Every structure is written in structure tokens, then in C-alpha cells.
């Protein structure tokens, strides 16, 4: 059964230096509050896994928390580059960042294999691309029935999977709706998991299109109201598009970035929602 604990406790217990950690949320329900807690606790040498690194990984990378990134699209959606990510790749600042690069279809299938307890997934993908030559984890495979050449990618089973959701009940059952992305697969693929939620309620009443992740499949649930900002939680908060645009300037310069992190993450009070 999932235990409902404070965010600080959950991160301190679950995330260790050197762990592989997947904070997911495909453009929606991005677990910013949990990412900020990882920064505050000063984790190092993490293998960060995420389909769309987004601003939260720009922040973790810029603060030197990561040694490797496993991903499929590293940009600021609708705006442009992730400058801290680029600085790490292009100049090794603040530390060199090893990359393992995939396509979205490949990453999605890797999580599905991880959640399914299979060693790898098969897809019709990557064929003819240069990604095959750069990423050792992309291999051709022949269909044993038809002889068709397909592509295999290994399962992802991160040490820790972290997602944000709209709600949980007191027993730790988690409910989320809207763009559900890859949330369920990450929680089921991970060895340990944390779900931060907008609120903890007495009872989960039905919502259109909602999925429920049963309590016993989750390690920790932590309340983090507003914890997906500047991303959003459908029905609770709206996406702060202006902040995504503003981040371009903040992250462009190392000093401006550090000042922003100091003010908005490091000095932010515990349990207080971190906003732009």
C-alpha cells in the first residue's frame, strides 16, 4: 500500500545519488515540485530519464544533479532550446552529460516493456535513421513468424519513477485525467515510485477519461498542491505559457539561472508551492 508522506520525506527516502530517476508527465502533470525537492536535497550523479526533458530537467541538469540523460526530445515546447541542457552537452557545464537518445515511440515502448516485465519491446521504428548508430540500445530484430526486420529497444525500469496526478485518496489510490501520457507505465516500470498530487480526498469520484493507479502499485504519495506548475494539472491549474517563454531568457545565462534557482527553488519554503 502506498504511504502518504511529506514530499521531503518521499524524496529523501526514494532518491539516492547515482539512481536512475524518471520524472514523467507528457506535457501535462509534470512533477516540478518533486524535481525542485531533488535539487534542494542536492542529489548528484543521477541518470535522468524522460521523454521530453522540458524545463524541470533543464533545472536539474543546470544544478549539476545529472551525469546522464535518457530522452527523446529536449526542447522548450513551442519556445526553442533548453539552454542549460545545451550548455551541458556543448560545453560540459556544470558537468559533462552523457546522452542516450531515442524517439518518442522508442521511449514509450521501453516504458511499456518495463511495466510489462519484459526485457525488451518491438516496434516499427528508427529504421534508416542515424539514431541507430549513436544509441547502443537500438537493435534490429527479425520477426520469428514473418521474417520482417523490426527494431528492439530494452525495457526501462528506473530505480525511481515520479509523476504528478490530480488526486489520491487517503489509502493512496491515485486518479488522473486529461493527457495521461506515460504516467501509468512509469509507475509500474519503476522499482520505487512517488506520485505527487494536487489534493488528497476522502473518496475518488469518477471523472471522464480518468485512470486510477491502485495504491498497492505505488510506494509513496505526497500532497503537492500546484506541484506541476508551470506545467498544469487539468481541472486545477492552467499551463503558465508566459513562464515557458520567460524561461528562455532566465536559462540562457548561467548566472541568471543560478539566481533564479536560488530564489525560487533553494530558498522556497517547504510545502509551499513553487511558482514562477
Amino acid at each position, binding site marked *: 500500500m502506498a504511504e502518504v508522506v511529506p514530499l521531503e520525506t518521499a524524496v529523501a527516502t526514494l532518491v539516492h545519488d547515482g539512481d536512475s530517476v524518471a520524472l514523467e508527465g*507528457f*506535457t*501535462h502533470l509534470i512533477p516540478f515540485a518533486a524535481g525542485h525537492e531533488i535539487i534542494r536535497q542536492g542529489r548528484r550523479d543521477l541518470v535522468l530519464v524522460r*521523454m*521530453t526533458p522540458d524545463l524541470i530537467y533543464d533545472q536539474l541538469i543546470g544544478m549539476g544533479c545529472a551525469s546522464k540523460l535518457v530522452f*527523446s*526530445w*529536449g*526542447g522548450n*515546447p*513551442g*519556445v526553442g*532550446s*533548453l539552454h542549460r*541542457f*545545451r550548455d551541458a*552537452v*556543448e560545453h560540459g557545464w556544470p558537468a559533462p552529460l552523457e546522452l542516450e*537518445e*531515442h*524517439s*518518442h*515511440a522508442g521511449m*514509450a*515502448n521501453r516504458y*511499456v516493456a518495463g511495466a510489462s516485465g519484459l526485457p525488451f519491446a518491438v*516496434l*516499427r*521504428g*528508427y*529504421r*534508416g*535513421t*542515424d*539514431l541507430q548508430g*549513436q544509441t547502443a540500445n537500438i537493435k534490429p530484430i527479425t520477426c520469428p513468424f514473418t521474417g*520482417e*526486420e523490426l527494431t528492439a529497444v530494452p525495457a526501462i525500469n528506473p530505480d525511481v519513477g515520479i509523476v504528478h496526478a490530480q*488526486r489520491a485518496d487517503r489509502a493512496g489510490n491515485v486518479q488522473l485525467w*486529461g*493527457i*495521461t*501520457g*506515460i504516467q*501509468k*507505465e512509469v509507475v509500474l516500470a519503476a522499482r520505487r515510485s512517488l506520485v505527487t498530487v*494536487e*489534493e488528497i*480526498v476522502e473518496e475518488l469520484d469518477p*471523472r471522464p*477519461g480518468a485512470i486510477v493507479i491502485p495504491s498497492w502499485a505505488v510506494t509513496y504519495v505526497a500532497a503537492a498542491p500546484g506541484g506541476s506548475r508551470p*506545467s*498544469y494539472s*487539468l*481541472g*486545477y491549474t*492552467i*499551463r503558465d*505559457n508566459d513562464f*515557458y517563454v520567460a524561461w528562455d531568457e532566465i536559462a540562457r545565462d548561467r548566472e541568471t539561472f543560478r539566481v533564479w534557482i536560488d530564489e525560487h527553488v533553494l530558498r522556497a519554503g517547504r510545502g509551499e508551492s513553487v511558482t514562477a
Partner: protein
Amino acid sequence: MSHTSDEMMTIAAARQLRAGQVCFVGIGLPSTAANLARNTHAPGLVLIYESGTIGAKPDHLPLSIGDGILAETADAVVSVPEIFNYWLQPGRIDVGFLGAAQLDRFGNINTTVIGGDYASPKVRLPGAGGAPEIAASCREVIVVVRHSRRTFVDKADFITSVGYGSGPGDRERLGLTGAGPATVITDLGILAPDPESRELRLTHLHPGVTLDQAREATGWDLAAAPGLAETAPPSEHELAALRALTTATPATPSRGNQGGG
């Protein structure tokens, strides 16, 4: 009404889409063009965004593929594995609409790295996203990209998404089920592959653009297709619809706290 070259590009791209088609859309120019088509001549166009929103009908342009407006207006919202495995991979989608940082003479797309080598590139781009499988599995691909020598290169520094590979027969050899890039729309004109060699050549010039200008902006010896035509200029209706779309407020109105907290 006078228009900019970007407006001409977006309108020319929108015209490629027809009502009843199912279109996989990326953010930026493709999303603008697809929504313009939906607001003008192709109201029945089905828009799919890789965030899992099928049949999204946004009333303003989303900044990201995850904007709430896409989920709130969609016919169905599915998970990310489902959108790629059940919807894209089997070839259910008619048109894939892509952008590019580099595009080579065979329509191969680079969105990964430019210059240097992979490990220490001069410019690190965002990477693949959904594009490799969109380029492989949609029945056809339309690329929308501004025309310049930096973008239109003889050989891409990195092939992120395959067009025609190194020429005729490559897509078949690789087992790519879709037909590949059918049209490339730029701010100068329209390109399409030569049916024999698969090399991109110019089929249309936008009004006021010369063949020399297009060649000057292309990193290979750009050929003109027989019957090189001039693109019809934007109509007042098209321009008005495009401007209404791009000036619509991007803020999503609050739907209230449905969570009750």
C-alpha cells in the same frame, strides 16, 4: 491585402490538407497550417497531436502539444504508447506534418545535431520526438520549413527522420510503410520529389519569387520541375483567417476548480 512570405508559406501548407484527412501535427508552423485548413476549406480535418489528443479542435493555437485546449476539445484522449502503437504505427494516419532544422536533397530531416560530431556538436537541437516514426508510417509527409542554405543542405549532418534515404528504393528496402515526403512548403515556393530520382525539385514559386532566389537559398543544384508554376496568392479570406488564428489570445480560460479543492 499584402502578405508576408511566412503567411504565404502557412497558407500554401494549409491548402495541401483536405477535409476528411487525418493529420498528425507538430507544434509551430505545421500546427498553424493545420488549424488554418480546419478553419477555412477543410473543417472536417482530423488533427492528432502526439500528446494523445485525437480530433483536437483548438480555438486558438496551442503553445505546446500538451496545452489543455487540445485535451478539452478532442474526440478522444489516449496514452502516449497508444498514440504511437495503435494509431501511428499501423498506418492509420494520412498526413504527417513536420518541420526540420536541416532538410537534404532526398527529404531526409535532421533535428538532432549540427556541425562537429554527435558527441561534441556545434549546435545541439532538441532531437527526434515523434518525427522518425511519423516520417516512416504516415501515408505521406508534408514538410514546412523556411528556405535557406543553412536548412536546405546537400547532405544532412544527422538523419533523424528518413525521407528517401539515399535515393530510389531505400524506403522499400528499409521497410518504411508510408510513401515519404510528398511536398515541401517553404517561404519561397513548393518542392516535390522527382518521381524517378526522388530528389526534391521546385514545382511552384510563390508570387514575386524568382527561380534564382530559390536556387540561391538551396544547398544543392535545385532543379525546376517541368511546368514550374506560380502559387496562387493568398485570398483575403485565407489571410483574414490566418491572422485571426495567430492573434487569438493564447490564454486558456480557467475551467474552475473541478477537483473541488
